[in-house]
């Protein structure tokens, strides 16, 4: 399907470029679901959004650079960061369009970082970590902390919320257009909120999460650990698969992409998890299609 056809359509086009959590995990056992860390591109008509800049953004960059070279047109891109842990920003120095003067790149992140977002991103391109400094990038780059309640980009409305139960915090986003809603909610420990032993505001936080994901046509969400693994990973900032699926189902999510796969989870294991969980929800009265997000997959919503 050509970009022109996509631009005419009333649908979101979404591609997974990186689905792995914590650290990039290349190798024979991760070829299918992919070893690159989080990056998802979303297009609605002519508005192009990128969610997170993990190592997956490198391949997206190569794809976009070919497009820019072919079309000889300026490119406006909007990059929304969930937070600035390595696995969500490490691909940015390898993002080819950032080196092209035709690119206008707006980077959005939590206002909680205040003026630190720019400093954090440029620090990872300090000469001690990377040979090219951020100031050398040829693209027109602006770094913006989100202040408005809802951002309007083209025909898309972007809503956001702080997710406090992750070390250092993170932000979830919802993208809405043409009556459809996509939610990107990675890096949050929902089990810890529900457990409530460490926080008094648990019920309020979980209610906010429920409202945010309610009725989503697609929810891309943190499901890093199995129910068996989770008790040994409490406090790491990630959700167990049964908790995620339970909440998504109760909130009438239509399609759930389990995301931020654990580096120790092989393709075979993710296949098995899919087979264990997906059938019962696909065949219920109001079906919810569950799949484990994989690199190289484009879907329309």
């Amino acid at each position, binding site marked *: *399907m050509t970009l022109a056809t996509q631009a005419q359509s009333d649908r979101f086009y979404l591609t997974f470029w990186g689905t792995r959590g914590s650290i990039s995990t290349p190798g024979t056992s991760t070829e299918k679901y992919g070893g690159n860390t989080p990056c998802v591109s979303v297009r609605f008509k002519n508005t192009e959004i990128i969610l997170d800049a993990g190592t997956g953004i490198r391949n997206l960059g190569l794809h976009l650079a070919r497009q820019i070279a072919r079309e000889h047109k300026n490119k406006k891109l909007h990059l929304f960061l969930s937070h600035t842990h390595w696995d969500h920003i490490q691909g940015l120095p390898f993002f080819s369009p950032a080196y092209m003067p035709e690119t206008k790149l707006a980077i959005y992140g939590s206002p909680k970082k205040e003026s630190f977002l720019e400093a954090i991103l440029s620090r990872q391109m300090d000469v001690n970590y990377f040979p090219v400094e951020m100031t050398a990038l040829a693209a027109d780059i602006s770094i913006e902390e989100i202040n408005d309640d809802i951002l309007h980009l083209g025909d898309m409305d972007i809503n956001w919320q702080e997710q406090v139960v992750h070390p250092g915090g993170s932000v979830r986003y919802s993208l809405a257009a043409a009556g459809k809603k996509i939610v990107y909610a990675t890096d949050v420990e929902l089990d810890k909120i529900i457990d409530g032993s460490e926080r008094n505001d648990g019920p309020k936080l979980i209610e906010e999460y429920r409202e945010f994901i309610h009725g989503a046509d697609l929810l891309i969400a943190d499901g890093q650990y199995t129910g068996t693994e989770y008790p040994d990973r409490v406090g790491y900032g990630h959700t167990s698969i049964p908790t995620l699926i339970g909440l998504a189902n109760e909130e009438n999510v239509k399609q759930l992409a389990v995301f931020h796969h654990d580096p120790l989870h092989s393709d075979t294991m993710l296949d098995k998890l899919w087979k264990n969980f*997906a059938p019962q929800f*696909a065949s219920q009265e109001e079906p919810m299609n569950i799949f484990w997000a994989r*690199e*190289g*997959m484009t879907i329309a919503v």
Partner: protein
Amino acid sequence: MSPKKLVRKKRARGKAEESTSSPESKKKNSTTMPIPVDAIFDDIPSDHTLALQVTIPGKRPFTVPADEPELIIGRESHCAVYLPVENVSREHARIIRNGETFTLEDLDSTNGTFVNNVRIVSCTLHQSDQIRIGQARITLVRINPS
């Protein structure tokens, strides 16, 4: 350990290698049957081919070699993967081969192309992925040419 000792150790190892490295000395020391090396190379298949295994209810399964740069899947008889069944568009989807990477693309079909029950626009394929187009099921499999 002193540097002197380290040098001596290296020399000793060097000598040992010299004494066994000639083919003649190896032959003398060998106690196993000689292995015909050419036969080993012949036995290792280097010409792997991927193919599409197609299953249509009520029909005999068939295989289509995935050796062309592009394979069209559809209801028209000219399609490389011809699916004369309900809910399949004339040209429904295609598989593009780029080196060893196979990408499935939906061609704006009416009823959709599914990979492991997810309706896709495009998807990089891996072995054992189940492609569903109408009533047909297609799997990418590796075959060794005989």
